């Protein structure tokens, strides 16, 4: 007999004031900060100021990633140029469904591709964050010239830059997902934005 399988619902909703304290704690975790352009600890006042500006900034969208109604991470987008948005994300919790990072990657592409006026999705990754670099390469992001980085933990790094032509995702989503473990494909069908 085949076992009945269920997969987590990935729900993305706009960040609200009620999420602020949780996101502040997530963002200040060392494992999160180390992969950010700005790795300094963020004060509560700075966090509130960031949220305040976000309210009146139509060029940026920040979503909370809920897995079966439980908040586990953040997905954000910002307008970069005509037809281009930049994205970033992190998982704030460590006890998550295995493969949740892939769901963030798929959600970002789905969200951008659903907006017909957008032509490409832009991403920057600090070069030591190799797991994300590999994931972008797996999905078929095109590398752009690196940008200069600085020093992190006494080691130099550069900023790896990537772009994804959204028409490619619109055409090839099914083919790309078919290369992933089948439970990821199934869970990708349960990605929702509100």
């Amino acid at each position, binding site marked *: 007999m085949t076992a009945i399988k269920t997969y987590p619902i990935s729900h993305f909703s706009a960040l609200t004031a009620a999420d602020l304290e949780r996101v502040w704690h997530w963002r200040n975790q060392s494992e999160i900060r180390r992969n950010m352009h700005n790795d300094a600890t963020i004060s509560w006042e700075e966090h509130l100021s960031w949220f305040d500006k976000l309210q009146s900034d139509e060029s940026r969208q920040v979503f909370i990633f809920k897995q079966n109604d439980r908040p586990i991470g953040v997905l954000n987008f910002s307008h970069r140029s005509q037809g281009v948005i930049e994205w970033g994300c992190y998982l704030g919790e*460590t006890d998550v469904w*295995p493969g949740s990072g892939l769901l963030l990657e798929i959600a970002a592409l789905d969200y951008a591709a659903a907006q017909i006026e957008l032509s490409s999705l832009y991403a920057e990754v600090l070069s030591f964050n190799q797991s994300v670099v*590999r994931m972008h390469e797996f999905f078929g992001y095109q590398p752009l010239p690196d940008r200069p980085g600085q020093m992190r933990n006494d080691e130099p790094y550069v900023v790896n830059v990537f772009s994804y032509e959204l028409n490619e995702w619109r055409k090839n989503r099914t083919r790309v997902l078919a290369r992933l473990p089948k*439970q*990821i494909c199934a869970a990708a069908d349960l990605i929702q934005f509100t």
Partner: protein
Amino acid sequence: MKLEQTIRNTLAQVATIANCELIADITDDTVLLQSGLDSLGFAMLVAQLEEDLGIDPFSQMQIAVYPRTFAEFVTIYRQAQQGGNE
């Protein structure tokens, strides 16, 4: 112990395939997301363990809290093998 060794062996195989560098010593308390295996690697690990063990507890069991550490990951597979659903 056999189950834990199976998981450790599969973890090592998947890390090689996924081009991930695991940390030197994975203990019971190692946080999975800090083990060196990336998200694709974990998805591959779960898929390979389903091939090897015939179970995918993350889609076949009602899991209230997903595992954070290696020990918790092994425990979930042990419960699944025993037909548990805790």
